[in-house]
């Protein structure tokens, strides 16, 4: 295999059995059922495979290559085959067809703290877990102090881990994992552990891994983490690769295919559309600056929130939008103050009202938009559609957004690009 390649996956497939087959119900797999089914198939002279087994492909015809030093995100809905792919790459389960070549030492992190024993002390568990993850004993010994320091639990290192808080436990577990030092690292969503500040530390450590020229395959549901960490992503759906390309593209496609996140919503049936006898909502959508509907938008560019509505009776109307982030915090409310229409009666007919959020304003991550139209004097809310549309703001690592060259997690509900002044006082 070519030396610049870290991983080559060719024609990979994995078949599982589903339905009435015994091995699927392994936890209740009973011998009697096997015996009776064997006897039955003998008596009826039928091949029991056909009768009992319903097979399906969890992965099919997967082909991709990863170069050394590349960081690749693997995304997809639950059941798309991400975990199966990861388990095959980590050699936990075997493929049904195809071939994988791996160039270099592979470390996989499907879970942190595998094999931790509650009765053993922190020190003992570091050794046990390290060796389970594929380190040599001397290697754990060499990195021991570093691991303990990283975990921030020096004082409790000789206490059985069953006395640890869950935060301490995950910190220790991740610290061992973070010191694996493989050539190729396969990581599942293990970063969703521990407290916020420790999560950040772990993300930083992950990024270090990437910059040290190591290859990383990163499975995650956290789209902002994926777009931040991985220049390239592979989108899986139904066990097949749908997209393999720049993360923004793959993430965009993932979000578009989603059911709960939609950048456009339309009410074709007037009887169920939000509104009253004066105004009726038709459509709400999120667009980029070229007025194309988009789920994933670049943080640096303006975002257009547009709504189409029909005025049924002449009224003074104030369209307004409510933007919330994924923590449910209302980022802002904006009212239409366009002087051309402010206080003016709108005659019957169809309208489109657009509010433009400037680039470098919202923080990265998902946002939900509520759309409303009201009259303010006297106050009447004609409709307020709370979760009308949703979109994702993506902050790339090009260096010209507010994050500059800072590559890890950034707090804050907005991420403005502010002016700075420096005065030098000699």
């Amino acid at each position, binding site marked *: *295999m070519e*030396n610049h390649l870290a991983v080559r996956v060719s024609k*990979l*497939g994995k078949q*599982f059995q589903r339905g009435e087959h*015994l*091995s*699927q119900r*392994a*936890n*209740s*797999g*009973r*011998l*009697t059922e*096997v015996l009776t089914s064997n006897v039955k198939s003998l008596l009826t002279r039928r091949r029991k495979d056909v009768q009992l087994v319903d097979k399906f492909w969890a992965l099919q015809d997967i082909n991709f290559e990863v170069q*050394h030093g590349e960081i690749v995100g693997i995304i997809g809905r639950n059941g798309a085959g991400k975990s199966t792919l990861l*388990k*095959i790459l*980590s*050699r*936990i*389960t*075997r*493929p*049904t*067809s*195809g*071939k*994988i*070549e*791996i*160039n*270099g*030492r*592979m470390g*996989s992190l*499907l*879970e942190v703290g*595998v*094999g931790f*024993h509650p*009765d*053993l002390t922190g020190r*003992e568990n570091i*050794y*046990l877990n390290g*060796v*389970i*993850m*594929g380190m*040599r*004993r001397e290697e754990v010994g060499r990195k021991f102090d570093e691991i303990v320091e990283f975990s921030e639990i020096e004082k409790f290192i000789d206490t059985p881990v069953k006395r640890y808080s869950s935060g301490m436990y995950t910190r220790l577990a991740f610290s061992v994992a973070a010191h694996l*030092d493989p*050539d190729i690292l396969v990581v599942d969503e293990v970063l969703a552990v521990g407290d916020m500040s420790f999560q950040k530390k772990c993300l930083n450590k992950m990024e270090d891994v990437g910059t*040290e*020229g190591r290859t990383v395959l990163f499975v995650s549901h956290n789209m902002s983490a994926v777009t931040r960490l991985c220049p390239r992503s592979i989108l899986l759906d139904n066990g097949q690769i749908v997209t393999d390309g720049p993360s923004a593209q793959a993430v965009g496609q993932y979000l578009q295919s989603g059911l709960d996140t939609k950048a456009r919503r339309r009410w074709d049936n007037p009887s169920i559309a939000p509104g009253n006898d004066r105004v009726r909502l038709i459509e709400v959508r999120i667009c980029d600056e070229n007025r194309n509907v988009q789920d994933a938008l670049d943080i640096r560019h303006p975002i257009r929130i547009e709504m189409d509505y029909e005025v049924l009776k002449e009224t003074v109307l104030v369209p307004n939008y409510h933007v919330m982030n994924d923590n449910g915090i209302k980022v802002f409310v904006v009212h239409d103050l366009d002087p051309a229409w402010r206080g003016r009666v709108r005659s019957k007919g169809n309208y489109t009202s657009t509010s433009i959020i400037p680039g470098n304003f919202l923080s990265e991550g998902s946002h939900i938009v509520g759309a409303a139209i009201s009259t303010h004097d006297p106050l009447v809310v004609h409709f307020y559609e709370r979760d009308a549309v949703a979109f994702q703001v993506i902050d790339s690592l090009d260096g010209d957004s507010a994050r500059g060259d800072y590559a890890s997690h950034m707090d804050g509900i907005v991420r403005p690009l502010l002016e700075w002044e420096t005065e030098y006082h000699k």
Partner: protein
Amino acid sequence: MNNNNSNQYITLVIDADNNKVLEFRTIWAYHDLIWFLSWSNVAVRYKQTILGVLWAVIQPFLAMIVFSIFFGLLLGVGSDNIPYPLFSYAALLPWQYFSSALNGISMSLVSNQALLTKVFFPRIIIPVSSILPPLIDLGIASIMYFVLMLLYGRTFSWEILLLPLFLLLAIMTAFGFGIWIATLNVKYRDFRYILQFLLQIWLFASPVTYSTSIVPDSWLPIYSINPMVSVIDGFRWALLGGDFPALIPLLISTLISTFMVLSGLYYFNRNEGLFADII
């Protein structure tokens, strides 16, 4: 730790069409793990117990008392002119090892589900790591045997030097049967119950409470299909002297044990790749 010679990676190939055999190189690469898993099995064995390692002595000792009262005293079972407590304790040493190791090995895969589904290493390491912990118990229980020898005023002779061979046979028997049950148990949890039942029957099919000399000669070839017959006779001979176990039964036992180990490894290896899917 960056690779100094980054152009010389070791290439690993996972090929669905290639039925791999046990890769001793990979197992060797993980030999630290055998040690650490064994060690942790030992370390947690008697954690949070008041009597701790004393349990390793108490169990065979109490069994010896009970056997001595019921079989030795009340039933008058013959013990080849050896004091019954010594006679039964010499058999209980390998028996306790065997039943404890068989149990540990058989349950090892299902009780390490997290390891099987979350991390890679040669799976054979899990059952192998269950061989050692009961050996430590055996070592501790042997101290009580020395005390008994002193009490009865007996001494060891050269035969004890051959004890490790019979111990090896006990290990092979436990491992051979254990690895079969462990693999089957991944798929069919029936074996958890079968094992408990099996061990009860097995105790009476082995000369723990009685002497092999009461078994008719014509039965011996069938009787010694149970390798524990030769193990226990061997232990008694090595510890207490007397007649060396009959050769044909010894040969049969050894063959059976070897066969179970080899076929067990084969069966284990064929199913290893599916453990994570069906456990």
